[in-house]
């Protein structure tokens, strides 16, 4: 048994590429060498695989050929393919074949290393010479060793600046040799070292999640803490965070401190340089911030008429006007209306042009500075929440109203302009907006009238419930057809139907399906029910019950009391049973028959207030 090392040396790979390689290498190693790797070691400059206890010979392989009875026809071709004579073929289990003996590991390694390199797949690749290989960045060396024998390449390379070429005495000494050359090849260990060092300098945070990238930005992590001048603390805190995290992938330590992860250098020198860069960036941000504040949020809001919301969707001033109306329709109070008026003001600010990801937050801060009440500034700040499937909802009620208004408007305008998402393409984030609306309606308990959703938007938004709710999709589909005014009502009704015990649901479902099936199959229903034509007792009973139950169901649905609605609907069950038993719907007398069909249609419509129950399989 031997130890195997394969190392692919590259120019600095992006973190994403390192992660892509990390997930593929174990399987590719198994496929190429038939063994599980012992360790996968990845830095920005190398992808390495270590395998302990690998046989020095690849296993013998039985190549199964044609069945014995096909000897005359197929044996020659098979033998030729495998470079043996027909006479050498053996017979096993009724088939001809040949035992190909294993080869020395060292012999197959060059082609396997090449295969490994070519079979890695990455989302973004480039060419750099005429070798035809595509990789995320140029490959500059490969090294493959079996114990102390170099099979491919001669050496590895250590840290780019503090080390140089590294002789690996034997495969099993790879880790030690690289560690001595200022490289920590194991990403998990680098991560541990970074976290440990960060813990030692203070209460670090990572709001934009850069840690995973930093692990692949350095080969030898050195954590350095720095400070910036306190006067920059006047900036909105997220501007500071974003500057620190986005521009230099550093971690805020609270107040004016931060921690930077370097890859080398003299800590004092690097600290001074990094502090200088951070202050430069903050100075830049302060400059734009102060200019914005001088204009003020109201002044910024006045400039929205000259900024396009999106092509064909008018300006941000138009959007602001629409938001006001929507907020009103959503029952928003004075604070919500004020927030709607100022919601998009930060689109005119220079700071948002610099930090587009801070839209909303910047507006909220500017509203606060202008003395607007907390309900207004918080709503502006929170208007884009939830901005991911698992992101939190706005905390404040005004924020929820504004967020819903914004999403409804974006959806309505986008659909009107024909920007319905297709396949994986959703450049305007409409799915996210729709899911956000659904969550505001359910988790957020916000009353969102379905009538505010225009055209296909209703369907698009309500379809998202199918993935969001616990209820099976059929119940969601049924509930979407219910006469419920409120978006959240659809969800609650679907859940009420799905959790209803079968003995209570069955009669409603049966009544609905029987009534609708029969009435829809036969033509000639009367346009209105004529009580005078109701002759049999059971049909009179159904008609009377309907008159009572229909408004009850409607009222219960309006009030969101789905239990009561179902309760009322259930009353029709036994009456319909008797009806179908004792009454001949398709009566001889055509007027009576037409009237009975109308009665059944009315039953369907009344129960149909609970949704298209036929969607639910039973």
């Amino acid at each position, binding site marked *: 048994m031997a130890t195997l090392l394969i190392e692919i040396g590259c*120019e*600095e790979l*992006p*973190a*994403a590429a390192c992660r892509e390689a990390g997930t593929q290498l174990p399987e590719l190693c198994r496929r190429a060498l038939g063994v599980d790797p012992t360790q996968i070691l990845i830095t*920005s400059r190398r992808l390495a695989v270590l395998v302990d206890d690998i046989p020095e010979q690849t296993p013998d392989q039985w190549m199964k050929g044609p069945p014995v009875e096909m000897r005359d026809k197929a044996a020659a071709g098979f033998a030729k393919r495998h470079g043996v004579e027909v006479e050498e073929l053996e017979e096993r289990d009724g088939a001809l074949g040949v035992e190909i003996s294993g080869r020395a590991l060292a012999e197959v390694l060059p082609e396997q290393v090449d295969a490994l390199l070519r079979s890695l797949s990455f989302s*973004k690749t*480039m*060419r*750099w*010479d*005429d070798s035809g290989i595509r990789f*995320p*960045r*140029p490959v*500059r060396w490969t090294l493959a060793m079996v114990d102390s024998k170099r099979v491919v390449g001669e050496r590895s390379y250590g840290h*780019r*600046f*503090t080390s140089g070429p590294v002789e690996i005495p034997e495969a099993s000494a790879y880790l030690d040799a690289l560690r001595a050359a200022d490289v920590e090849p194991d990403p998990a260990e680098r991560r541990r070292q970074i976290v440990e060092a960060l813990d030692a300098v203070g209460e670090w945070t990572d709001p934009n999640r850069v840690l995973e990238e930093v692990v692949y*930005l*350095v080969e030898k992590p*050195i954590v350095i803490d720095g400070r910036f001048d306190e006067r920059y603390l006047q900036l909105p805190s997220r501007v500071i965070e974003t500057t620190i995290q986005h*521009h*230099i*992938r*550093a971690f805020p330590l609270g107040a004016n401190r931060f921690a*930077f992860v*370097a*890859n*080398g*250098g*003299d800590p004092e*020198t*690097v600290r*001074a*340089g*990094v502090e*200088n*860069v*951070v*202050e*430069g960036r903050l*100075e*830049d941000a302060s*400059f*734009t911030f102060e200019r914005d504040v001088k204009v003020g949020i109201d002044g910024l809001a006045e400039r929205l008429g*000259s900024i*396009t919301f*999106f*092509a*064909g969707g008018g300006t941000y001033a138009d959007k602001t006007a629409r938001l006001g109306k929507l907020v009103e329709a959503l029952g928003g109070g004075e604070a919500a209306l004020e927030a709607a008026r100022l919601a998009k003001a930060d689109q005119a600010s220079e700071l948002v042009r610099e930090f587009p990801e801070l839209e909303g937050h910047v507006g909220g801060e500017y509203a606060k500075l202008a003395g607007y009440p907390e309900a207004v500034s918080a709503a502006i700040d929170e208007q884009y929440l939830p901005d991911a499937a698992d992101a939190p909802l706005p905390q404040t009620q005004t924020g929820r109203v504004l967020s819903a208004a914004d999403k409804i408007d974006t959806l309505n305008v986008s659909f009107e302009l024909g920007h319905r998402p297709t396949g994986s393409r959703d450049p305007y984030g409409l799915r996210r907006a729709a899911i956000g609306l659904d969550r505001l309606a359910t988790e957020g308990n916000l009353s969102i009238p379905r009538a505010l959703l225009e055209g296909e938007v209703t369907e698009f938004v309500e379809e998202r419930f199918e993935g969001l709710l616990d209820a099976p999709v059929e119940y969601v589909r049924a509930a979407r057809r219910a006469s419920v005014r409120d978006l959240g009502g659809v969800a609650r009704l679907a859940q009420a139907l799905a959790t209803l015990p079968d003995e209570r649901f069955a009669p409603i479902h049966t009544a609905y399906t029987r009534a609708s099936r029969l009435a829809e199959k036969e033509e000639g229903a009367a346009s209105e029910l004529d009580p005078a034509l109701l002759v049999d007792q059971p049909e009179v009973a159904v008609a009377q019950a309907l008159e009572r139950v229909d408004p009850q169901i409607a009222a219960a649905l309006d009030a969101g009391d789905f239990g009561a609605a179902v309760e009322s609907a259930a009353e029709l069950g036994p009456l319909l049973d008797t009806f179908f038993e004792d009454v001949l719907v398709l009566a001889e007398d055509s007027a009576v028959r037409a009237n009975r069909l109308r009665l059944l249609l009315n039953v369907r419509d009344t129960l149909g207030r609970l949704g298209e129950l036929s969607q639910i399989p039973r």
Partner: protein
Amino acid sequence: MIGALQDYWANRGAVIMQPYHTELGAGTSNPATFLRVLDPTLKEWRAAYVEPVIRPTDGRYGENPFRFQHYFQYQVILKPAPDDVLDQYFGSLEALGIDLRKHDVRLVEDDWEQATLGAWGLGWEVWCDGMEVTQFTYFQQLGGIDLEVIPAEMTYGLERLALFLQGKQSVFDLEWAPGVSWGDVYRENERQWSRYNYEEAPVDVLQRRFDEHEAEAGELLDKGLPLPAYDQVLKSSHALNLLDARGAVSVTERAAYIGRVRKLARRFAQLYVGADGNAPD
């Protein structure tokens, strides 16, 4: 600093070129890069030069110490990219007096794309103690055409690099020459040009100029004169940048304008490589 870079790259076989004579948004657009890289018959080309870049929307009236509508890039193009291109690049930093062991020097993923030129490449921004001092790109496509020979482009941000070397916090305070600061030389320039770019540049004239440059480029391409046509593409691109600074184009209009420049750039590239619609093989 510029002298040190010129010496360094001249010693490595680079032709020392001069800035181009019309406004460019980046040194990449200089024919010494764009055309030479695109030319499929030219298998080897090394050049280095200073390029003053003009970006009207980056002007800040000389008030912001980090943003300017006019600044300097040092551009190096090596075609094909040598195997040791990174070592050569880091050598140039050492030639500038940067001790690579004392500082934290790093390559951070940053891919490059220029919509108007139909061009993209993969590469990095180079950090010195967190300061981005160079953009490094392996071009893959220009003018919508896949490149046969892959070059490496290094674009040094001269002001940033000087901030780093001089340890200054404001570009205005950079020492341009003994006793003369960057601010002494360029601050008034920034003030006046920012006013021109944002307030005074005549919108109707610019719109007309864009159309004229575009039309002329088209005619020159029809007549089989790609080189003069290329200048017209650059000029139309600059007219668009000015219109943008004047706030005279909406987002949609801007996309349409960019589409027009890109179309020209693509036509130009195809004529120039002699492929008339087909990428060279």
